[in-house]
């Protein structure tokens, strides 16, 4: 098993913390993991991407050059990285912000309107975890429960109050992904 996840977006979208959370949870599961961030050149508001590699074996390159899963948090990210995804790979697009369509037809595309869903849940900050929930559902790399446990370690104590909301977001994401699967199968 090797899953190479590339999470792409801009600063403030929580891409990096999502990647770290995912890596942490997979480590808990006894997987080999590697996490690598990439920032844009600009000081603020620029590109903010990360790659997370999850494997049963020692990880060679920590660079996610050919993602098995691409999470595109905005249009430009999809445009830029779509072509890198392996054939039959998975693209999870934050359809709240991604306006463009995937041009390839050899990848599986799952749109998740994360920002809208987050607003509906009353906390715009959980959009990233809605997406992550979808990823967990679609790949099965690690369970929501373990990610929830990881949240305790990753978040500083003073933010522990936010854990339930984030777990609900993960679950909502998973739910949306399940619904999409059903539609796919139809």
């Amino acid at each position: 098993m090797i899953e190479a996840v590339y999470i792409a977006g801009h600063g403030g979208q929580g891409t990096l913390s999502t990647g770290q959370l995912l890596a942490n949870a997979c480590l808990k599961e006894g997987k080999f993991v590697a996490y690598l961030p990439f920032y844009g050149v600009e000081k603020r508001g620029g590109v903010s991407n990360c790659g997370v590699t999850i494997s049963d074996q020692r990880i060679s390159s920590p660079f996610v050059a050919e993602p098995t899963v691409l999470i595109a948090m905005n249009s430009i990210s999809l445009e830029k990285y779509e072509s890198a995804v392996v054939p039959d790979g998975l693209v999870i697009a934050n359809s709240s912000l991604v306006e463009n369509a995937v041009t390839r037809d050899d990848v599986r595309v799952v749109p998740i309107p994360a920002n809208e869903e987050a607003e509906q849940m009353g906390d715009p900050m959980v959009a990233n975890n809605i997406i992550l929930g979808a990823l967990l559902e679609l790949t099965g790399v690690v369970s929501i429960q373990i990610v929830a446990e990881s949240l305790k370690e990753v978040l500083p104590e003073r933010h522990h109050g936010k854990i339930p909301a984030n777990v609900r977001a993960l679950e909502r994401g998973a739910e949306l992904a399940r619904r999409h699967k059903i539609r796919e199968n139809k």
Partner: protein
Amino acid sequence: MSKILMKGNEAIGEGAVRAGCRYFFGYPITPQSELTHYLAKRLPEVGGLFLQAESEVASINMVYGAAAAGARVMTSSSGPGISLMQEGLSFLAGSELPSVVVNLMRGGPGLGNIAPSQSDYFQAAKGGGHGDYHMIVLAPNTVQEMLDTMGNAFDLADKYRNPVMVMADGVMGQMMEPVDLGGDVRVEIPPKSWATTGMAHHAGKNVINSCLVIPEEMEELNLKLEKKYKEISQKEQVCDEYMLEGADIVLVAFGLVSRICMSAVEKARAMGIKAGLIRPVTLWPFPAGFIGKTADKTRAYLTVEMNMGQMIEDVKLAVCGRAPVYHYGRLGGMVPDVRDVLAEIKNLHEGDAGR
């Protein structure tokens, strides 16, 4: 103990703390600043000192003073900052003061940028300061090794009374991987009877010095150093091998790039190309012994470096004409891509080595 996820920068810092290092003197520079932020918090927790110097020139000389006083001490920097330390590094070597310097390399020359690079290989391995001297140079390639290498670095520094440089880059500093902290550490710091701690604290009068105006005396110091360097060179060469069995195309790469090459080698093997990898762990002493031994079985070497071709010279010296040595490099902060390295391997396979 179970593993935790850690950044490379934190691993270096924590590794130093666990190696008994209690003194850090340094000056901010990207991409090593996170390491200093970590230590600025962490060292006071263990009763240590984090001191920001006014410059890298001052940092390395504070390190010189602290090392003379017998402490395990370190600094870290990058690019221009490491260049400013060259005088101090030569002094540390000349006065035989154990100390550890971390270089998170960035793109150069000049101000360049903060992206990863390996263009300080020559500076570190051949000596960027004046005079004949060598630093021991270590190049980890995982976060775990970044942690572990620090203990090793301080031990080697003390064992040989010599400065040790640890080389990585900003990407490795930001990279997170699982780390086994390895339980409680009890550090054995060897007694330093030569340290200038005040005469009440040791026998006689101690002097730390590299100024020997009489050439005969300076030559003696040089010969002593040369002997030490030979000993280190014999005993401390370390490299890792990966898929080397039956390999006829051998990649040589260190640090971050070695990880990329591992992937490229795996892919090449999957395609039926007998590729393998040697990863120098010590850049000085360079593992010429091991590489030399592989020369007769190898059809071609390929060094992959984030520079114009620096380590390739050491590989050539080790191989000594018995096989061709090629270089593939990216510059200015660009990182080689697995696919491009694979293409190079295929080229070699079909060209030279495939013949």
